[in-house]
């Protein structure tokens, strides 16, 4: 409750949007039971024209609302996990680079730079073409292009921490260098990296949506990107089939940005 009061208007709006989204993901099997890819009614029903299909049906007669709800699950699953993988991998690389210094630092930062010069989306595309589309490979592919920022931020933080007294104390206690790096320095350096979480999740959502829009997503799961692509084939006669899942996408990304801004604003208030 105290935290809620510390949030500004933007943060609260983001919080509400995201809670609604998580509820959508959790309640999807209750509101729309069964396979969202199953054909359940007449094709191309307009939204609000039938009680059984609130948001209408697509070209094949699949329920749009069911797709939207189940798509939330795929989106959140892929985005949260790939952001977690990206942040962890990035902070490990950043800690090693900053703590070891010298040649190891140079090599690791050149590798980071190399990853930054290739567009994250292109990397994800290449990784998917090598591994085939499924949820775990999507998570791997997306984090492949998004870990670099966390590595840079953590490295900068580690560089400023490693000369501190508590590191010298750990050294005199006889801790091994890697133990110092990961048990003493990394936990203290993680704060600024964690503030990248919102940006990473939003980026992962957009990359996943674009991948499945191009047809490189998990074919056995319904996603917002694949719904937009599906609706595109009948864009002239039924534009809402592409527009509705896109609105879900925009609202989600907006909610994450709002919450992220709200949280960083709160941190600025508390020195």
């Amino acid at each position: 409750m105290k935290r809620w009061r510390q949030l500004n208007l933007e943060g609260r709006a983001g919080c509400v949007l995201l809670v609604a989204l998580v509820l959508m993901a959790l309640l999807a099997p209750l509101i729309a039971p069964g396979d969202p890819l199953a054909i359940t009614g007449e094709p191309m029903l307009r939204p609000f024209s039938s009680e059984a299909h609130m948001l209408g049906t697509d070209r094949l007669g699949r329920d749009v609302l069911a797709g939207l709800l189940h798509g939330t699950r795929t989106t959140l699953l892929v985005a949260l996990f790939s952001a977690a993988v990206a942040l962890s991998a990035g902070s490990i690389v950043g800690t090693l680079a900053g703590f070891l210094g010298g040649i190891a630092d140079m090599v690791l930062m050149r590798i980071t730079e190399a990853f930054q010069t290739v567009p994250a989306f292109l990397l994800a595309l290449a990784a998917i073409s090598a591994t085939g589309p499924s949820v775990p490979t999507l998570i791997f592919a997306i984090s492949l292009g998004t870990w670099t920022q966390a590595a840079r931020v953590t490295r900068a933080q580690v560089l400023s921490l490693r000369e501190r007294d508590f590191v010298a104390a750990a050294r005199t206690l006889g801790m091994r260098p890697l133990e110092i790096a990961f048990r003493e320095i990394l936990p203290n350096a993680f704060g600024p990296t964690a503030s990248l979480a919102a940006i990473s999740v939003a980026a992962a959502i957009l990359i996943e949506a674009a991948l499945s829009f191009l047809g490189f997503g998990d074919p056995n799961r319904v996603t917002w990107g694949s719904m937009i692509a599906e609706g595109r084939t009948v864009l002239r006669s039924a534009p809402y089939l592409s527009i509705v899942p896109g609105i879900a996408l925009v609202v989600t990304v907006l909610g994450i940005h709002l919450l992220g801004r709200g949280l960083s604003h709160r941190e600025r208030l508390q020195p």
Partner: protein
Amino acid sequence: MPPLLAFFLRRIVTALPVLAVVLVGSFLLLEAAPGDAVDAYVARSGAMDADQLAQLRQEWQLDEGPLHRFRAYASALVQGDLGWSSAFERRVASVILERLPITLLLMGVATALAFFLGSLLGVIAGANPGSFRDRFLSTTSLALYAVPGFWLGLVLIVIFAVDLRWLPIGGIESIASGKTGFSRMGDIGRHLILPVASLAMVYLALYLRLMRDRMNEVWRDPFVQALKARGLSRNRIVWRHVARNAVLPVVTMLGLQAAAMLGGSVVVESVFAIPGFGRLAAEAVARRDTPLLLGVILCSAITVITVNLLVDLAYGKLDPRVRVGR
């Protein structure tokens, strides 16, 4: 040695190991893919017996180990040869060179639009932090920043190409129109309006926000008080001093976003059926053309490095403290 030349040489020397890592990394990644170029070729051209397959593999040097193949690829690369595209039945380099100018045009126009309009609106918002204009522009930019380019493209198509019929639905120019010179340029321009808008919008919102937030900070700097005390007009302070200081991080961001924009062009070009470099990446993946995909990855890395080089040069022009060569 002139400082500018030394600067270029230094940058090329630091770029080489980065490109080497990109090359090795993408080679390893694509090496992990199941199937090879012969499988892809057979899948399109029809049945072949085992002897023919083995012969083809030998011809394309696929029967050797990955290390041997990498050496062959790298030594051809040094001579400017990117290999053979099985999907297009042409040299990879010539396919890429044909596609790259369209994407560079698209990205260039989108970047210019996002930068100028974004920072202009950012100055309008940041000239008076907290005013109605500021809050309106800030909120709008936050919402626009959440809109994925490919979806915006579809929405724009529905409005401007399907409903209003003002603009073409896709492609880069009218097919077999026989137009030349200015009328052809106008035709291409008309085709570019919607793709540029969908690619640029996110960056426009980003630059607006960045400019506005930076201006808000610069206003608190003591030197602004000194300018006010000297009796400079508010307009002059806003444009000549606050905005000029605030534009530097936006220019830095321009370089950082080059890679992201190139990635965005993959989807936007697919939406608008533009035969560009971005769509080539998607085609290479869909048609399992590994040499082509490798070439696309390498060329995009080179493009991004070049853009960053140009941004650093521009930075020196704007901020005398970091002038090149000193």
